[in-house]
């Protein structure tokens, strides 16, 4: 179980949210909603362990993630705003190296399959530089297909994707929930998952409701 306890986030002298409490169980997906600048990305970054909360803590299986560090990161896949793609590496190399650096080494065959599945067949060997924005996004998202992590934290995963890719991504999310995974995501788009239970959280200015 992933818990947020009395979380407060401040940027500069502005408080984005205070006293945020919620927990997420296996097979649940949390949709973080809110207007621009309400702290969605900050919340996700705090949950990923990239940012320090002003108050409160995140607990994974009742232990503070600040203490768990690497043990928590093993169970985590975070895909942020930035795709994390190197323009001079091929799609295949990008996928393999990103996975390996995250501690999940995959074989070349697995990488080929994942890229084929996500709609990049025939483009595996092209440098990421020549891929379109949406295709680069797909390379980043291909990590979800080979991930062994339990918690997925996804910041705007649907950005720059076409209708077909969005549908496929929804399937991937449903699949993960079916396997007792957990997902936290932000998006301004509507989406549906066929498995698991969808929960929402609204971040307003200075207040949050679950």
């Amino acid at each position, binding site marked *: 179980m992933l818990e947020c306890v009395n979380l407060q986030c401040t940027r500069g002298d502005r408080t984005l949210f205070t006293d945020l409490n919620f927990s997420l169980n296996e097979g649940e997906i949390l949709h973080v909603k809110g207007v621009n600048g309400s702290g969605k990305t900050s919340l996700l970054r705090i949950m*990923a*362990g*990239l*940012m*320090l909360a002003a108050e409160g803590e995140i607990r994974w299986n009742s232990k503070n993630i600040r203490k768990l560090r*690497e043990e928590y*990161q*093993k169970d*985590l896949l*975070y895909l*942020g*705003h*930035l*795709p*994390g*793609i*190197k*323009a*001079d*590496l091929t799609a295949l*190399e990008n996928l393999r*190296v*990103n996975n*390996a*650096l*995250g*501690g999940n*080494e995959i074989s070349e065959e697995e990488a080929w399959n994942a890229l084929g599945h996500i709609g990049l067949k025939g483009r595996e060997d092209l440098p990421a530089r020549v891929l379109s924005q949406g295709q680069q996004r797909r390379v980043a998202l291909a990590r979800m297909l080979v991930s062994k992590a339990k918690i997925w934290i996804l910041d705007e995963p649907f950005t720059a994707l076409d209708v077909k890719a969005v549908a496929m991504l929804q399937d991937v999310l449903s699949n993960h929930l079916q396997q007792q995974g957990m997902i936290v995501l932000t998006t301004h788009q509507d989406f549906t998952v066929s498995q698991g239970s969808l929960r929402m959280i609204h971040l307003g200015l200075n207040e949050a409701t679950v």
Partner: protein
Amino acid sequence: MIKVLRWLIWRDLTLAMRRKAEVLTTLLFFVIVVSLFPLGVGPEINTLAEIAPGVLWVAALLASMLSLNRLFADDYHDGTLEQLIISSQPLALLVLGKILTHWLLTGLPLVLISPVLGMQLGLDANSIIILMLTLLIGTPVLSLIGAVGAGLTLGVRGGGVLLSLLILPLYIPVLIFGSGAVDAARTGLGVEAHFSLLGAFLVGALILAPIGAAAALRISLD
């Protein structure tokens, strides 16, 4: 753990090989700066040999400085640095991997080209060997110390200048004992003391710098 390190080093080396200009910049800067001195000071070989240790070491210092702000900048801008920070491997170890690659690409070429430049300035064979050895021990220290500064100034506007102000003073001990050793060799004095101190700097920096740089990166991305 070693596997992750291997992947990281492979990635950075591959990227450097596909964009050779960045590696060559450091090397050419070093060669050109050293070559300017005979033109400015005059071709008097004894004068040149006298200033050679200092010139070569200062040029090496500035050359390794030149490439420092790109150590983490590319990873920072494309988002891979975030992924390194939340990797399931200790960040200090990954940082050490990045520093090692940085040294292989910018420090080692300086060591290899230095005999040619030493000859250009009229150093004798023995001094040139000592020069290479001091650079071999000294340039990794520069990369290690520099990484802490590069981490701290990451994402700061005008970070390049700040980085120089922050790091150059810390380079002074390496400069003193590095050029001191070559000078001692040239005048026929013992060099053991200089090497012991350079070695001590290297060991100290190897242990402390990756931890410091890792902490600096966490702060920069907060």
